[in-house]
């Protein structure tokens, strides 16, 4: 397993000290830093010694950790994990151990480094392609398609007939002339009553006075209503007396005698 190889070339101390001073913030996370460390020494990531890489990382992170308290938690988590990985790689696996072997963990880290590297290469290859608007061009003067919105009118046969019927019925309403009904005004009724009762002080049924007017069916209710209302007015004015013997019985009227005479 390459991960356990011990022939990781040791970087020169001077260079290493310099690196230690580099702000970890310059890296896009611990994986980026690890990848950078790995690529300094090997082009082929599968040949990288994970153990050596872990040691380098731990050393690298120690500097900022001591000098700057705010090293991102990501880096510290990775450092802790790499310390764990280191211990797994150095201590032979116990058969009963449920934990993944150090080799498996190392292979996983290699896989992730290789995958990140592959995506970086892919991004570079993508951006080195001929790009639209830079090297390749679309039509510079696109000819606009003008969209004319044409309404499709919806109307059902029923709607049509309903509309026609409605219009014709409305037409009828417009031609409506109210039926002329002969209505007795209160004024007319009052004058008539006064005239009919005259000076008669005998109790006489009011219908008897109106008999000739009540023969026309259409007029009957109007005549009754108007004369009754007028009679009440005449009573109020003290011109006549009225009496009714029973409910719905005939109404009797007579000229009120002047109390002064």
């Amino acid at each position, binding site marked *: 397993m390459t991960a356990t190889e011990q022939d990781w070339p040791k970087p020169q101390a001077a260079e290493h000290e310099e690196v230690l001073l580099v702000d970890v913030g310059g890296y896009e996370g611990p994986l980026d830093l690890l990848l950078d460390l790995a690529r300094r020494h090997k082009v082929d990531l599968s040949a990288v010694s994970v153990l050596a890489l872990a040691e380098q990382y731990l050393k690298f992170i120690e500097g900022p950790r001591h000098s700057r308290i705010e090293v991102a938690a990501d880096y510290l988590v990775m450092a802790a994990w790499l310390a764990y990985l280191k211990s797994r790689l150095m201590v032979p696996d116990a058969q009963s151990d449920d934990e993944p072997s150090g080799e498996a963990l190392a292979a996983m880290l290699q896989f992730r480094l290789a995958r990140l590297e592959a995506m970086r290469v892919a991004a570079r290859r993508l951006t080195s392609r001929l790009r639209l608007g830079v090297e390749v*061009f*679309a*039509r*510079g*003067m696109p*000819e*606009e*398609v*003008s*969209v*004319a*919105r*044409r*309404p*499709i*009118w*919806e*109307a059902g*046969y029923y*709607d*049509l*007939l*309903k*509309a*026609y*019927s*409605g*219009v*014709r*019925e*409305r*037409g*009828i309403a*417009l031609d409506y002339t109210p039926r002329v009904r002969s209505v007795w005004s209160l004024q007319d009724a009052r004058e008539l009553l006064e005239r009919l009762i005259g000076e008669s002080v005998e109790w006489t049924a009011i219908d008897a006075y109106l008999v000739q007017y009540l023969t026309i069916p259409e007029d009957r209710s109007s005549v009754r209503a108007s004369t009754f209302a007028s009679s009440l007015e005449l009573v109020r004015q003290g011109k006549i007396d009225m009496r009714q013997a029973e409910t719905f019985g005939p109404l009797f009227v007579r000229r009120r005698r002047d109390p002064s005479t």
Partner: protein
Amino acid sequence: MIAGDEDPNCEVRTRQLRILEAMLFASSEPLSAADLADAVGQGAALPRLLEELQRQYASRGVNLVRRGDRWAFRTADDLAFILRREESESRPLSRAALETLSIIAYHQPATRAEIEDVRGVATGKGTLDILMEAGWIRMRGRRRSPGRPVTYGTTDAFLDHFGLENLADLPGLEDLKGSGLLSSNIPASLQIPLPLTAVQQREEDPLDPDDDGQDKE
């Protein structure tokens, strides 16, 4: 594909034509000969190249056209229709339009004044326009009466849309009453015209081909 093979410098020429083609295609404005000259090389016979390109595209869907002393690709004139797209949207006919349409259907040929008389409301020109645009009514002729008003009638598209074989299929008075569309207590005086029986009485002249239906003021 590229013509002009008789030219001894065919390869150079082909390449020059391709460059012109690409530049004219990609440019956001028509290009002058000067704009193009740099790209194809000063020695090139630009006018002849442009002529050649114009000739190559003459029969295609896109033509190389000259605008003043500038050049551009434009859609061929006869294909202008593809640049005008029609999108249809369904809209219910307004009540006014429905009423007007039904009156025209029953009373045709009907003048605007007659329609207004039945509706009891003035009919906007817009309403008739919508019905004409929908293809359901047409101007039939001019009434032989003072002012010679335009008469309207329905079209075959009207019959088609409403599933009628002919105008006689329109329900009559009794049908409308029977279906409950007309209330039954309408006066006996109310008549629903039998379609087109009126034609003979209401004299009209067919519309002249050059009559746009506008009333003379």
